[in-house]
């Protein structure tokens, strides 16, 4: 089972890209078992998923200095922790801290981050046009990453 998780608050502009992509993915037919999770803004939801040993794909917006709507995909590991620090969650726990905590708790699930550069995360603004335009590319990225996981499982 592959878990695909959208992080973010739909009331906060482009921060809502994670949940928006999850809703789009509900209409996609996958040929292997997946679970779609709208985790909102609570970092502890991610911690819970990370220690469950099943591979994860996380979609969230992140300030990376790219153009709004640019997508950066990376594996979450010690090397990439500084990327993960850009991803903000509630209660003072960022994704990098959650990842490190999960590692201490014995997690070894593979975690891929699909990070999207936001234009605005102001309250009550909805997704910007740049981010809306990027949704098909994000969906394609998710599907490709999912296929990679499926292929790996078949090979193993």
């Amino acid at each position, binding site marked *: 089972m592959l878990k695909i998780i959208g992080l973010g*608050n*739909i*009331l906060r502009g482009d921060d809502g890209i994670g*949940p928006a992509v999850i809703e789009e993915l509900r209409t996609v037919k996958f040929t292997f078992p997946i679970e779609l*999770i*709208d*985790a*909102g*803004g*609570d970092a*502890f*939801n991610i*911690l*819970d998923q990370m*220690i469950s040993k099943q591979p994860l794909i996380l979609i969230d917006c992140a300030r990376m200095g790219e153009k709004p709507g640019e997508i950066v995909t990376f594996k979450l590991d010690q090397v990439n922790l500084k990327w993960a620090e850009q991803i*903000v*969650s*509630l*209660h*003072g*726990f*960022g994704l990098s*801290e959650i990842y*490190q*905590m999960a590692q*201490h*708790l014995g997690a070894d699930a593979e975690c891929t981050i699909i990070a999207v550069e936001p234009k605005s995360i102001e*309250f*009550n603004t909805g997704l910007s046009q740049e981010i809306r335009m990027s949704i098909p590319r994000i969906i394609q990225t998710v599907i490709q990453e999912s296929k990679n996981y499926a292929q790996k499982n078949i090979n193993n």
Partner: protein
Amino acid sequence: MRKDLNIDVHHITRVEGHGNIVVDMKNGRLKTAQLEIVEAPRYFEAMLKGRNFNEVAIITSRICGICSLGHQMTSLKATEAALGLEISEQTKILRKILVNGSTFQSNVLHALFLATPDFLNVGSVFPLVDTHKDVVLAALRLKRLANDIGDVISGRAVHPISCVPGGFTKLPTQQELKGLLEKLINEGKPDAKYAVDVMATLLDKIPDFKRETEYISVYNDKEYGLYDGDICSSDTGLYPVEKYLQVTNEFIVVHSTSKHARFNRNSYMVGALARFNNSHKLLKPEAKKAAQKLGLNAPNYNPYMNSLAQMVEVVHCIDDTIDLITILLDCTIKDEKPNQEPTRYGRGIATTEVPRGILFHDYTYNRQGSIETANCIIPTGQNLANIDDDMKKLIPEIIDEPKEQITHKLEMLVRAYDPCISCSVHMLDVEFIE
């Protein structure tokens, strides 16, 4: 005795809320002791204006990532009151189960992940992963159990979709409820007991501080007040929810972008300790035992004990959920459709206890079923004046302790209230100015 003290605990980055602790004492006179809230206003009420009654609860559930279920419930009840939508007993029971789940989830995470590091003076939860791994895992199992409740009862683990104005669009099966019941009995109860046992070993770490204040919570003479009831003041008794503005009396202060509140005194407290003080007689027997084990007797005037009251509620909510699911299984789930035929359009006011305290939503709908005006009063705002008053009493009592210790106790005090800004206070850089 120290005559001068200046503390400026300031935090800016990487959190949902921003809070600063500012203390200024000169020549033995305490000029300032306050929690500054510098977060920009979000205007949730403006977001609701013009929205149809079917959208409102979904929007409000996103106001807060942690209290999302509580906002959703309060919103649904306010909409139903405004539109004259009656709901069934089955709907009420299902909602109570959801409220229990979200309460024990939030309480256990706060008590064990955010407050316990204070008791052990370790700065954050991360060192606990190595030293107290079993209790961290128990807390995470309890969180997952609450997510399972959300999944079974409302269609999703996070941000429910099937609870709508007038009822539920999808109902759990008997089989799903039985599975949940087994998990609550076999995992939830022992994990909660274990967490209480661990907390009981930390009692000597809790600062010895008392300040009697007014305690305000939902009160219901049939059950521990969480899902519904009147407003209860420990000073002057019960008030119908429609009179909430007489109770909250919000006012503006210079040092906070969030309004403060007061009723019969200069300030009042909401949250787990307020609920415990007002409704402790209605706790389930095992929760009463947990309170005894944690040295929590009502009335309790130590705000640091709020985290212990939260753990007592964890035990209560799990046992109450077991009882509620048993009722549903005994009666078998009826295939009811949500009642979405408004009988009137007007104003509706509702209250629910969310983990951090009493929450109010107040909506006025037009004849098209869209919101014209809305007002939401959240618990953290209601606690702010009380936190300031606690600091004013506490600082002179601990003035001769080392500055680091004073700062630690002040931060710990703020976090004990489990405010939505607790994260920011957790990550504060502390600057002393002599």
